[in-house]
């Protein structure tokens, strides 16, 4: 676990880089969090996925997996990988300030 300053606010991230306390997240942290993941240009499609991840987490308690994202976010899995080449579910979860999606049991 480590404390990192994002958008002038201290937040706690776990060893894998996911938010420990999702309530510490605010939307103005998104550009800096995206930059940390190698995404410098945030398109509307990025925002659509990030906001979708966030709202799914808030209503269901866990973020969706890539497969569920492809079925429900309005963005196909192929496009999701173009937006987040290092893995849509994990990277978008980090940027959306939510824990690692609990798909893998």
């Amino acid at each position, binding site marked *: 676990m480590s404390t990192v300053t994002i958008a002038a606010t201290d937040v706690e991230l776990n060893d894998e880089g996911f938010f420990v306390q999702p309530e510490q997240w605010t939307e103005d942290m998104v550009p800096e969090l995206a930059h940390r993941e190698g995404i410098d240009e945030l398109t509307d499609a990025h925002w659509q996925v990030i906001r979708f991840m966030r709202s799914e987490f808030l209503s269901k308690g866990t973020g969706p*997996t*890539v497969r569920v994202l492809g*079925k429900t976010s309005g963005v196909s899995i*192929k496009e999701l990988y173009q937006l987040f080449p290092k893995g849509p579910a994990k990277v978008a979860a980090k940027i959306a300030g939510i824990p690692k999606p609990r798909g*893998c049991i």
Partner: protein
Amino acid sequence: MAYRVVILGGGTGGTLTANRLRRVYSEAEADITVIDQDDRHIYQPGLLFVPFGLASADDIVRPRGRQLHRGIAYVKSAIDHVDLGSNQVTLENGTTLGYDVLVVATGAVLVPEETEGLTDAGWMDKVFTFYSLEGATALEAALATFDGGRLVVNVVDMPIKCPVAPLEFCFLADWYFHERGIRDQVQLTYVTPLDGAFTKPVASTRLAGMLAEKGVDLVTEFNTGEVDGAGGHLAAYDGREVEFDLAVVVPLHGGAPYIGRSPGLGDELNFVPTDEHTLQSKAAPNVFVIGDAANVPTSKAGSVTHFEGEVLVENIHRYLAGDPLDQSFDGHTNCFIETGFHKALLIDFNYDTEPLPGHYPTRVGLPLLAESRLNHLGKLMFQWFYWHGLLPGRDIPGISSTMPESGKIPAELSGARKD
């Protein structure tokens, strides 16, 4: 008037639930009906052995109706949908059945058509699955004539039934080709979407070590986007490719299709959102879920279904009596992992504790996370227990539904971290 209990699915969960309920309620107290679309009850752990000629269809299939005790009605029909508002199940032919309690036990189905190219040219020719009886049988013939080349074992995405089975397939393939004297001509590769050999850290490290010892290459974080049977390669969404001469693919899984036709019952993948401790569905208080059909955060495995049975039946009883539900299901999972050469590994875990080394169920028991002949015999003997103990709803002496801790070495001492 008798309670009406309708159980959807006559597999492991549906059968053991019906038989346990029949002992709790007399025929005057409850009508119990089991619905399934076919009369073939497959002992699914046996599918792993079919491709290697170690089991045949005759050994692992029995009629569903015969596994149900007297006084349980068995209806052979596909299900069209469930109407939660009117508490009714509609069958394929339009017949309706009303229920006071519904048990969803229809498991998980394979959806190979959701992966681009998987069921196109090459399917059942160069690309197989052992997750169906037809696939496992066809694969046996293909392996018998496979004289060398690249054999790739691929899991498309989680969740899948029995997440250790594809690893077991690798171990058994290694053994099989050794026995045939051509192991040095076969390149074995395990391609997984996970970031390691398995989901849980201690077991993942141990299993990755075993793959390496047996000369099986491991490709991780591979999210399969396309299977090109004719061209002989898997393609990941991130652009990576793995070439093969023969591919053994575990397709995507979903819940039964009727769940998608039943408003409010399932999630995006047709699994049923379920309370992980009581096994009551989140869709309606009189709907309970057992086995692979539930979205609870544990493995989709027969042992889980077995351990769920006790809490499930207790909670149906409490629900009908108007009492608060028992919240004691802990996600207990127990798997024998065949490693070839007459040996097997055993893992035991629950929602909170990952698989750890030690012994099961107590200090003088089967070795955990270690290869032994005893575990292999345990796996073989289990098939007898399945038909004669588990399905009839009998408990195993000394084996509790909740996970035992006494024989385990804590994670701190076994070099594990807790997620």
